[in-house]
């Protein structure tokens, strides 16, 4: 439980107070309060349609909630939040640019010198196994390759915070393990904060400092689990450990309870 206590003492990075969302007559999100601290890895976990992407959109400043306050780094969010990287659930690669150009875009917008851009793009393309496809247009990529290009684009500028909506769903098992390491490293060494969405219990248990389990109709937080693996976890060892299995079981049980509430 040491991990939980460590992060609990850090400053708040994201604060949602009584945030709710309606689309027309439908209440999509009941008033919800969530806090994410600096360098914390928080996972949103819950049934499809419960409002996970909606919550990420709110933090990204893309959606103004119907009620409630949203703070980022102590200040109310007004307008698009440019201090984050957002790996969306939908494809937002620009179809008229090659993979390389798409991935380089955030750096060019930030005025990074060209040689450095080329270097960093190369690094990320290698990391995501996209080197051979660097000069293809999105229409020429496979489904998983598009997701990986998007992932590269959201990570390359090392933003303060990463919002990741099912980032590894279309990635094969082997590459996925490598990326798990990469994301944890981002939190532990690059001081990034992560808000993560997945449907994979194991993934949620493995990576998170905290898991928020959501229920639906309307969406709301029904359980909160702190993962006991602490910072600087060794994923390789953790995968084979008993406590990891126990954590998975806990997450699954929380989800089941949440859904039984519904029925």
């Amino acid at each position, binding site marked *: 439980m040491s991990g939980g206590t460590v992060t609990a003492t850090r400053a708040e990075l994201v604060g949602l107070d009584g945030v709710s*969302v*309606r689309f027309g*007559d439908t209440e*999509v999100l009941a008033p919800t309060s969530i806090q994410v601290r600096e360098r914390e890895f928080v996972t949103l976990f819950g049934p499809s349609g419960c409002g996970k992407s909606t919550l990420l*959109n709110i933090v990204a400043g893309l*959606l103004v909630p*119907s009620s409630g306050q949203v703070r980022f780094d102590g200040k109310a969010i007004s*307008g*698009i939040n440019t201090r984050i990287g957002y790996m969306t659930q939908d494809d937002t690669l620009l179809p008229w640019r090659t993979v390389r150009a798409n991935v380089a875009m955030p750096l060019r917008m930030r005025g990074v010198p060209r040689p450095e851009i080329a270097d960093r793009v190369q690094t990320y393309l290698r990391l995501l196994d996209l080197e051979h496809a660097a000069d293809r247009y999105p229409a020429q990529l496979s489904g998983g390759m598009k997701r990986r290009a998007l992932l590269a684009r959201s990570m390359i500028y090392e933003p303060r915070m990463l919002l990741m909506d099912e980032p590894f769903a279309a990635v094969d098992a082997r590459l996925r393990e490598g990326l798990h390491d990469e994301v944890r490293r981002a939190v532990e060494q690059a001081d990034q904060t992560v808000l993560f969405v997945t449907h994979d219990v194991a993934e949620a248990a493995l990576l998170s400092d905290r898991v928020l389990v959501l229920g639906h109709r309307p969406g709301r937080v029904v359980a909160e689990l702190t993962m006991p693996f602490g910072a600087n976890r060794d994923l390789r060892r953790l995968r084979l450990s008993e406590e990891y299995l126990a954590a998975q079981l806990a997450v699954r049980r929380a989800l089941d309870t949440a859904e039984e509430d519904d029925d």
Partner: protein
Amino acid sequence: MTDTMNGRARAVATKPVLASGIRDRVARHLLQAAILVAFLLLWQYASGRWVAPLFISSPVAVWDTVVRWIADGTLLHHAVATFRVAVAGFLIGGLSAVVFGYLLGVSRFWAGVAEPFITALYALPKVAIIPLLIIWVGVGAGLSLVVCALIVFLLLFYNTFYGIREVKPALIDGVRIMGGGWADVAFKVRLPSAFVWIVAGMRISVPQALVGVVTAEILAGNRGLGYLVSFNAGQFNTAGTLAAVATLLLIGLGLDRVVALATRSALAWQHGGGR
């Protein structure tokens, strides 16, 4: 149409959405009224001071003419004549444009073959073929109808054609795998998908339908608003000319509004505001 700010969706309670929509609309209409009034005042002021009334008349004089024409039925008589032909021409030209644009949009080969000929027809100054048209269809309403249908056809054809081409092939494949035939592909995928383009084309071609009829009436007509325009222009009755033009504008705007309303509900699916 109203509740989405640029790139930033709003998820607010139903009431406030409507309220802000109404507030926006009121602001818009007020602004439009202000611009219109400013324009009319400027026009009235300029008339006789900066520009001879012979050329620009004045809003008051135009208004007087319109009132007189309404009273004696002149306006209704000519407006109905023009309007009828324009509607008929629009329907004929528009329908053939959608059918033809569809057919060429789905076949790259035939599109390639037909395209230069259509472009040539399009590049032809219509004034140059009026004599030929007169031989074929005579003068009067027939001529106006053909000119109008031709103009509408050409404008709408291009947009339909491009719209049909821009359809996502994966959607078509999906429907065909489900067992959809060409009619399913046409009416369930291609046309709905091209609908935004077709609507844009309609907004482009509706006013031109009127312009086409009026041009034909000016060149060879004895009825209609085009006749009123040229009749009054010939006598340097600028107030009369502008009164006819203003009526034309109002009919054009009205038709445009009708098209906009008719197509809005059919495009409702776009405004989910979802991401």
